[in-house]
């Protein structure tokens, strides 16, 4: 069974700091990768996704992620965070194009101090 690890459970940053959230998965075959964000009191929203092609994926709100196949990683980055980025971030993986049937990590809570 595939699994997804998000090593940072809680990250606290000041505004304008750079962000990198780690995500590693266990499955060795072809995978599709996603990052979701959940702002306080809101539903899960897709930040970005990788299916194939350029391993550096750009998403909404200035976020990007890099797929490194040899490291089984899909880390999320943002050069300069804002207070409004305070949220919980989930990495997810699936083995087909079925985005709805994904294996999620346990999430990373990001707190950005103004």
């Amino acid at each position, binding site marked *: 069974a595939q699994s*997804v690890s998000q090593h940072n459970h809680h990250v606290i940053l000041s505004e304008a700091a750079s962000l990198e959230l780690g995500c590693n998965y266990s499955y060795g075959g072809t995978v599709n990768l996603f990052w*979701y964000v959940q702002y306080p009191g*809101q*539903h*899960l*929203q*897709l930040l970005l*996704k990788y*299916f194939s092609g350029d391993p550096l994926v750009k998403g909404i709100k200035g976020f990007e992620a890099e797929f490194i196949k040899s490291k089984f990683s899909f880390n999320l980055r943002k050069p300069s965070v804002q207070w409004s980025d305070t949220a919980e971030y*989930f990495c*997810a993986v699936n083995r087909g*194009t*079925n*985005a*709805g*049937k*994904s*294996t*999620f*990590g*346990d*999430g990373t809570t990001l707190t950005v101090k103004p």
Partner: protein
Amino acid sequence: GAGVSQSPRYKVAKRGQDVALRCDPISGHVSLFWYQQALGQGPEFLTYFQNEAQLDKSGLPSDRFFAERPEGSVSTLKIQRTQQEDSAVYLCASSPDLSNTEAFFGQGTRLTVV
């Protein structure tokens, strides 16, 4: 509405009680998914519908869990004889077509079994 709607938002059930959770997907969306999210964890896949057909129910934790989507739109997740370990947020997601490259999530129903 524009998004996936779930009701009720909160449900408290006494142990042994049956509950029914409702999901209204985005109008016209073909695919529908249910997830269970325990406190401090990521969502875990329960089941998947394509129109009215339940194509995958591999994630349902026991035969006390039952889901249906009889007319290919609204779906109901039913839990019989609830137990404390069923306490979680139940998320519904829908996808517009069979490629399922993006899933849109509802805000979830928080079930507390006392």
